[in-house]
């Protein structure tokens, strides 16, 4: 049994590695397939042919694509992400601090969103088909289906413009006290949390309903076990693994939300760096940011699948 599980996990990890390689190759070749020329678009319309040729040479654009890919991928392996075309700094130094900021935002959001979502999902599963369940279902559906920026805009309208409670921008450079920390983080975290809670509460409800309508829970009810005991002793042990799966999957939605939230609130994270680099067409920076996001996404989905494998193993073993 355990040997089988080991093989299954190894296969899943192998598939993730293949996906990662696929992503690296895809990101490079898509961004290298420019119809125009980076050199031309950087120098603008008035550039002389000589200047364009010189820049092309210094950016090594005149070399064959495969050779450039080899040196770029080699650099990645050595932790060298290249130089930014616009600011001429090394990408690594630009990304480093921004990444820490983004991780901080993601961490705080997770801390709040996960318990809220689990509670909402579980409650609406227990009281399923009641008014409460319908309300939660419609609300979460609304949050899930509108674009993330609408939630952010609405939050700014209510809390910053109408109620004057919170600042509309997240300036994390001048955090001195708990008060300023709360003021800077509450809006981005609340917005991002809304998006995650919407996704996660829906999935949690599905998992819980699945277990609650199983035959063994029905048996326990018929035996006269108290509701609390049913939840704690019969249901909880059976949902731990699938809920971990739900958590990892929902957190991968953080990535989509984080891009919007950082831009709306001018939060100095890696996602807003990426949007800026897309606007200025700073290809090395776009490539690195895209890779970091894909790697994080892959990590979370792989984690979700491995947890699912464990839970399948447990169910078979029991």
């Amino acid at each position, binding site marked *: 049994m355990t040997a089988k599980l080991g093989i299954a996990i190894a296969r899943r990890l192998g*598939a993730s590695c*293949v*996906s990662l390689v*696929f*992503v690296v190759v*895809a*990101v490079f070749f*898509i*961004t290298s*397939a*420019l*119809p*125009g020329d980076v050199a031309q678009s950087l120098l603008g319309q008035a550039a002389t042919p000589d200047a364009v040729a010189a820049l092309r040479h210094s950016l090594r654009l005149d070399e064959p694509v495969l050779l450039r890919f080899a040196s770029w991928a080699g650099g990645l392996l050595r932790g060298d992400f290249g130089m930014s075309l616009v600011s001429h700094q090394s990408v690594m130094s630009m990304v480093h601090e921004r990444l820490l900021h983004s991780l901080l935002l993601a961490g705080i959001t997770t801390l709040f969103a996960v318990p809220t979502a689990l509670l909402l999902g579980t409650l609406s599963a227990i009281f399923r088909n009641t008014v409460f369940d319908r309300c939660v279902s*419609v609300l979460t*559906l*609304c949050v*899930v*289906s*509108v*674009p*993330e*920026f*609408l939630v952010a*805009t*609405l939050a*700014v*309208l209510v809390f910053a*413009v109408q109620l004057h409670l919170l600042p509309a921008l997240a300036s994390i450079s001048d955090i001195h006290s708990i008060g300023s920390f709360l003021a800077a983080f509450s809006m981005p975290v609340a917005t991002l949390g809304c998006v995650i809670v919407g996704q996660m509460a829906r999935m949690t409800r599905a998992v819980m309903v699945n277990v609650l309508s199983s035959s063994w829970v029905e048996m326990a009810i018929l035996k006269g076990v108290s509701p609390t005991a049913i939840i704690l002793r019969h249901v909880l042990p059976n949902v731990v693994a699938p809920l971990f799966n739900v958590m990892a999957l929902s957190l*991968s939605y953080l*990535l*989509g939300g984080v*891009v*919007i939230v950082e*831009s709306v609130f001018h939060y100095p994270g890696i996602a807003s760096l*990426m*949007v800026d*680099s*897309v*606007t200025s*067409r700073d*290809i090395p920076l*776009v490539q690195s940011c*895209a890779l970091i*996001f*894909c790697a994080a*996404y*892959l990590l979370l*989905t792989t984690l979700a699948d491995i947890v699912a494998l464990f839970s399948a193993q447990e169910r078979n073993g029991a």
Partner: protein
Amino acid sequence: MMLTLPLPRSLTPFLQAPLLLAMLWLLLALIGPWIAPYLPGEVVSTTVFAPMSLQHLLGTDYLGRDVLTRLLYGTSSTVLLCAASTAMACGVGAFLGMMAALKRGMTDTLLSRFMDGVISIPSLLSGLVAVATFGSSMPVLVLAMACIYLPGSYRTCRMLALSIVQKDFILAARMRGEKTSYLVLREILPNMAGPVLTDVGLRFIYAVRLLSNLSFLGVGLQPPQTDLGSLTRENLLGLVYGAPAVIAPALAIAFLTVGLNLALDSKGRRQ
């Protein structure tokens, strides 16, 4: 299996709220620019962020242009762009999915592995990378969104087709020596039309979200073209005054996505 049915039976539940709603939006998108009271780029008032009035039903925007006119044009481009990319994604996805389910073997494995690879890139990220590389123009956005949502459609259709391919009537058709095109078009597709259309609806909602998000970030449709996301972005300052210029496009997006999703959801509940 009756082949002469005018409509596949699995389609009938869909001929209700979701389809009607989708038709309504599509109609609005098509006739919107014709019934708009002004020209989209025309500055018609000296007041910016004017409130609602009889002359300008939804007020004016940050340059004094008519919001209703711009909203109609914006809705048109959002709905048409997303419909086009969804149609491409789901058309190709469904075709490839059914082929993979019919052929199995090497074709299936290679296609599925490739699609899994594409799916492992978050959609907003692929959109950003595509725009960074090819610039943001209508064809780029439509093609990028089509590529982004193709794998999901492929997966759904492959799963649906796999369960149908094992049915006896497919075996019978194969024994009769029918061609693959006949199997796909007359036997498999009609039997999965209902779930596939639900999937199409969901992907359309994803496409609207993605396009609006990109435009809101300023990397989607570029002026003078507008869509609902860029309309919200350019009028964001009006938020302070509670101007309809920013609330109207935001509400339009919400109605479009939430309405369709609620309709699809209640349909799923009934089944």
